[in-house]
Every structure is written in C-alpha cells, then in structure tokens.
C-alpha cells in the first residue's frame, strides 16, 4: 500500500505544473525602472566626484568625466543588465584606492620632511650654531653701557 502511494507521489512530482511566467512590465513600470536606474547612477557619480574632492588633478578629471558618461549611458538604457551597471561602477574602485594611496604617501613625505627639519634644528642648537657670535655680544655690551 505504501509502495503504491510512494509511486503515485513520484509520478505526480515528475509531471509538475509549470509556474506561470510573470507578466511583462507595463510601459509605466519600465519608465519607473529606468528613472530608478538613472537616480542610482546619478547618486553614485556624485559620490565618486565627492571622493575625489573639489579640484582633482587634470588626468583624473578627464577620467571622471568619461566614467560619468559611461555610467549615465548604461543607466539610461532600458535593457541594461544590472550586473553590467555594477561592473561598470566597480571600474572606479582601483582609481579611488590609488588616489588614497597617493594622499597617504604625500602625507608621509610631509611628515618625514618636518621630522628632518626638526632634527636639523636640534643638531644646530647642540652645536651652538645659533648661539650669539662674539662680535654681536660685544656690540650688545657696548650699547648697554651707553645706556
């Protein structure tokens, strides 16, 4: 008995009723989808440009402009594959990383230069290089005695 019911269940499982495919989106839905894509692309581009600051170097400025055109182009296409847009958006990540690395390197160089100047000043103080010269000392004594 149980064997027959198992067989019936397996037969039923093999002949599954296909799920109805979702209806195609209406023109209004497509338009809203496109507008959402454009909004997403716009906010992403604004974020990227903020990350590079007010006045990026000219070579980066050109790259940012090209990137903006690419993202806006992809976002304005109704049949854009979302993965394609995400892939395009990931293109800027290495540039951002490089820019941060450059900023960190410049900061380190500034700190090293400051340290070097501090050490040089300390060395010259120890050597008495910034002490009063004997001629200056005599002049000061003469002026004080005149007073």
């Amino acid at each position, binding site marked *: 008995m149980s064997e027959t019911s198992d067989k019936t269940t397996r037969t039923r499982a093999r002949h599954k009723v296909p799920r109805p495919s979702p209806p195609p989106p209406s023109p209004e839905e497509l*338009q809203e989808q496109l*507008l959402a894509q*454009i*909004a997403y692309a*716009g906010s992403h*581009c*604004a974020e990227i440009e903020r990350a590079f600051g007010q006045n990026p170097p000219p070579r980066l400025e050109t790259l940012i402009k090209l990137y903006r055109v690419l993202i*806006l182009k992809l976002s*304005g296409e109704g049949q854009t594959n979302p993965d394609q847009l995400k892939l395009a958006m990931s293109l800027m990540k290495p540039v951002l990383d490089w820019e941060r690395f450059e900023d960190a390197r410049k900061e380190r160089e500034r700190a090293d230069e400051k340290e070097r100047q501090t050490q040089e000043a300390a060395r010259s103080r120890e050597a008495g290089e910034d002490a009063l010269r004997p001629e200056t000392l005599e002049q000061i004594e003469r002026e004080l005695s005149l007073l």
Partner: protein
Amino acid sequence: MNPISDIKRFLMRALWRLNGLPWPDALMDEAARQALVPRPLQSDINQAKRELEAAGFIQGTRDELDELVTWTLTDKGRHKAKQLG
C-alpha cells in the same frame, strides 16, 4: 495623448533624479527613446527640449573643449520637477 508633454514630463523627472549632475544631450535623447512607448521621434524629443528650455525649466551648457551639450534643471525646473515626482 500628447507625446511632447510625455517626453517633457519624463525629462524633467529624470533630470531631477540626477540631482544637478549634467546630463549629456545624446544620452538624454537615448533615455527618452527607451522610456516612452511608442518610441518618440527625434524631432519630438528636440521639440520637448526646446520648449522646456524656452519655459526656463532646463538649461544647456556647451563644453569649451569638446563642444558637447549637457543639460541641468534651473531653479524653476527643480521646483516643477519636485511636483512631478
């Protein structure tokens, strides 16, 4: 159905979503073609842009180097686009 007003409405809504980011002219045209059914004619899109510009809702800027035109909303346009949603 007035295709010009539909195009104008879409362009305003899309520009508002860009939040001040300049939209290149060619990409704006392509988006309008993709967004509307039936697909609008280029002449209709051009007329929509002209009317929006004449009404003071959008402004075009021509790049000095490559002479490409980009569009943004004016203050008046932002106010109107916000109402459209």
